C-alpha cells in the first residue's frame, strides 16, 4: 500500500499521528496512577496528577523566625532570615510572586515591598523568601509573624509513599505481608501444573492409543468451562477432606484450572516437533521416558516458557480463586489483590496509599511482561482458542 504514488507522505503522517495518539491514550491511565504514587497526599488532593510535571502556583502560609532570635541594632530590633528555610524547605525551592500579612489579602505586596506590620515595625520579603523585619520595640510572643505568599514551586516527587508502605516497619496497610503471600501462592501454582501437563501433552501428541482424539476434544472443551462453576463444589470438597482454606487448597485449585490451557498449548507445540527426531530415538532403543526427558522437554522450552508466563500472570493477578480457597476469617493469608480491594473500601480517598499499593502489585507482572514479551506473544498465538 505504501507504493501508491502521491498518497504516501500524507498518509504516513496520519498513521504516525494516529498511532502516537492511540499509544498516549492507552498509556495515560497507568501513567496517572504511577505519577500519583510519587506525590504527597496534599498534592494529590489539591490538583490533578498532570500538574505534577509543571511548576505550580501555590498559596502558602509561612512564618518568620520566633522573636527570641531577634538582635538589637542601634535603636532597632531586627530579625533576618528566609521564610522557606524557617518552614523546613530548601531555600531556592520556590519563587514568590506576591505576599501579604493578612489572610484576607494575601497578594497585597510585591516582592521587595515594605509592609507596615504594627507599632512602626516593618517587614519586607524578596522573591526568594529572604525577609527583613525591624521595629523600634522588641518583638514579643512565642511564634513568628505569619506571612502569606503566592509562590511558584517546581514539580516535586517523593519516594515517601513507597517508604511508608514498604519499609516503615509499621505495615499498617498489610501490603508487605500480602506481597509475600502472593509470592507464596504464585510460585508453586506456576511450577506444578507445568510438569503434569508436559507429560500429558507428550502422550497426547506422540503416543498412539484409543480415545486420544476424544481426550483432546475434552481438553479443548474444558478450556472454556468458567471456573465460577468450580467454586462451591471444590470448596465443599476441600472442607470435607480436611484441606480447608489455605495455601494447599489454592495451589491445587490453580493447578486444576491451569491444566487445560497448559495441556493444550504444550500439545500443540509438541505435535509440531519433527517426527524424525522422535522416531530415530525410538529406533535407537530409547524408552519413552528418556525421549520425553532428554528430547521433548528441552525442545519444548519456548512453549513451557509461554505457559509459565501465562500462569504466573494469571495467578499473581487473581482475586476470585484466592478469595474463595485461600483467605480465611483471620485475614493472615490475604493476597495483594484482595488487600487492594479492602483498601479501596477503607481508604477510598487516600490516593497516595492506593496508588502506591496498586503499583507495588503491578510492578512484578510488568517486569515479567517486558522481560518475556516474546514468549507471551508466542503463547497467545498458539493458544488463542481459549
Amino acid at each position, binding site marked *: 500500500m505504501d507504493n501508491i504514488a502521491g498518497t504516501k507522505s500524507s498518509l504516513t503522517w496520519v498513521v504516525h499521528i494516529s498511532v502516537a495518539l492511540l499509544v498516549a491514550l492507552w498509556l495515560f491511565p497507568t501513567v496517572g496512577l504511577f505519577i500519583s504514587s510519587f506525590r504527597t497526599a496534599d498534592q494529590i488532593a489539591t490538583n490533578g496528577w498532570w500538574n505534577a510535571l509543571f511548576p505550580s502556583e501555590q498559596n502558602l502560609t509561612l512564618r518568620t523566625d520566633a522573636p527570641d532570635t531577634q538582635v538589637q541594632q542601634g535603636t532597632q530590633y531586627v530579625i533576618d532570615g528566609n521564610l522557606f528555610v524557617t518552614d523546613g524547605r530548601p531555600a531556592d525551592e520556590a519563587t514568590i510572586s506576591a505576599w501579604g500579612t493578612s489572610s484576607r489579602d494575601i497578594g497585597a505586596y510585591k516582592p521587595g515591598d515594605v509592609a507596615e506590620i504594627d507599632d512602626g515595625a516593618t517587614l519586607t520579603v524578596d522573591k526568594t523568601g529572604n525577609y527583613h523585619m525591624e521595629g523600634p520595640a522588641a518583638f514579643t510572643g512565642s511564634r513568628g509573624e505569619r506571612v502569606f505568599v503566592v509562590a511558584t514551586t517546581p514539580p516535586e516527587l517523593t519516594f515517601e509513599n513507597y517508604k511508608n508502605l514498604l519499609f516503615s516497619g509499621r505495615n499498617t496497610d498489610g501490603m508487605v505481608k500480602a506481597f509475600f503471600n502472593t509470592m507464596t501462592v504464585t510460585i508453586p501454582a506456576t511450577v506444578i501444573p507445568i510438569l503434569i501437563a508436559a*507429560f500429558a501433552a507428550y502422550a497426547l501428541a506422540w503416543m498412539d492409543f484409543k480415545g486420544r482424539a476424544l481426550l483432546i476434544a475434552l481438553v479443548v472443551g474444558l478450556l472454556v468451562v468458567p471456573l465460577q462453576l468450580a467454586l462451591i463444589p471444590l470448596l465443599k470438597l476441600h472442607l470435607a477432606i480436611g484441606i480447608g482454606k489455605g495455601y494447599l487448597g489454592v495451589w491445587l485449585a490453580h493447578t486444576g484450572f491451569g491444566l487445560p490451557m497448559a495441556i493444550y498449548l504444550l500439545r500443540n507445540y509438541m505435535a509440531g516437533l519433527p517426527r524424525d527426531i522422535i522416531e530415530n530415538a525410538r529406533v535407537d532403543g530409547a524408552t519413552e521416558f528418556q525421549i520425553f526427558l532428554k528430547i521433548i522437554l528441552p525442545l519444548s522450552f519456548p512453549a513451557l516458557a509461554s505457559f509459565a508466563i501465562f500462569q504466573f500472570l494469571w495467578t499473581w493477578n487473581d482475586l476470585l480463586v484466592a478469595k474463595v480457597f485461600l483467605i480465611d476469617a483471620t485475614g493472615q493469608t490475604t493476597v495483594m489483590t484482595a488487600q487492594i480491594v479492602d483498601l479501596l473500601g477503607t481508604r477510598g480517598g487516600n490516593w497516595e496509599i492506593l496508588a502506591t499499593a496498586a503499583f507495588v502489585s503491578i510492578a512484578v507482572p510488568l517486569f515479567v511482561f517486558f522481560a518475556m514479551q516474546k514468549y507471551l506473544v508466542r503463547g497467545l498465538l498458539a493458544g488463542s482458542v481459549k
Partner: protein
Amino acid sequence: MNSALQALITILVGLGGCISYFYLSNLLLDKVICRPTGPNAGRNINRANLIRPWLFLFPAIFALSIYLAYPVFETLRLSLTNRVPGGGYTWAGLSNYQQMFNEPKFWEAMRNNMLWLIVVPAASTAFGLLAAQLTDRIRWGGIAKSLIFMPMAISFVGAAVIWKLIYDARPIDQDQIGVLNAIYIYFGGDQPQTWLTVPFWNNFFLMMVLVWIQTGFAMVILSAALRGIPEETIEAAIVDGANPFQIFFKIKVPQIMTTILVVWTTITIIVLKVFDIVYAMTNGQWETQVLANYMFDKLFRANDWGVGSASAMIIMLLVSPILIWNVRNARKEMR
C-alpha cells in the same frame, strides 16, 4: 517466612512427587510388569505401549476431572437442591431457578451482561484491528505495540484502581483530580459527575476498563494474522486501483475473518467471567451488577448455594455454544 518455607516444601514435594511418580511408574512397567525380554518380549512391549500413555496422562486426567469436570455436575446438582441448616440437602426441583428469575437483580445482571457481551468484544476487536493495521506500517510499531499490549499484565484489580482515579470526582469548588471530570468541567460541564453512580451509563465506564485491557490481546493476534496475508492479493488490488480503505476492508479483513472470530469468542468468554472489575469498582451497586458478581454475592454473602449454583449454570449455559464450536473446530483440525 513460615509460609515461604511451606511454599518451598510444596514445590519440592509437588515436583518430587510428580517426577518420582512418572519415573517409578515407568520403571515398574518396564522392569516388572512387562519386561521386554524373554519369550514374551514382543507381546510385553506391545502391552507396555498400551499402558504407558495412561501412566503419562493419569495425573492430568485426575486433576482435570476433580477440578473441572466434577464441579460442572456437582453445580448442576446443587442448583436443584436446597441446603438444610445443620447439614444435608433436600431436592428442590427448579425452585432455585424460579426464585432467581423472580429477582430483579438477576435480570439487571443479565441485561448488563448482554451489554458487556455486545460492547466489549466489539470495541476491543475494533481497536485491536485498528492498532494492528496502523502499527504494522511504521518503524516504531514494535514499541507502540508493546505499550498498547501492556495493560494485559495488569490485574483487573490494579486496573480498577487506575480507572477509579480517572473517574474520581471532587466538589465543584475544588480542582478536579479525576481526568474525566477535569475535561468535563473544562468543556463547560456544570457539576462534577460521580461517573460510577450514573445508572446505565456507568456500565460503559466499567466496560472501558476491560476494553483497555483486552485491546492489546486482540491487536497481537490480529497483527500476526494480517502479516500472514499473501502479498499477491494486496498487490493485485493495488494494480486494480483500490484505495487503502478498500484494500483494508475488502481484501484484508475478509481474509482474516476466522481470526477475528477467534478473538471475538475469546474475549466473549472473558466477558462472561468478568468479576474482579465490577467487584472492586462498584460491587454491583448503582445497577452495574453482572452475572459473575451476582453469583459471588449469592454464594458468599447471602450464603444461598442453591441460587448461586443456578446462576453459575446460567454462565455455563451462555458459554456452551462457544464450547461446542471450539470442540468441533478442534476435531476438524485433527482430521
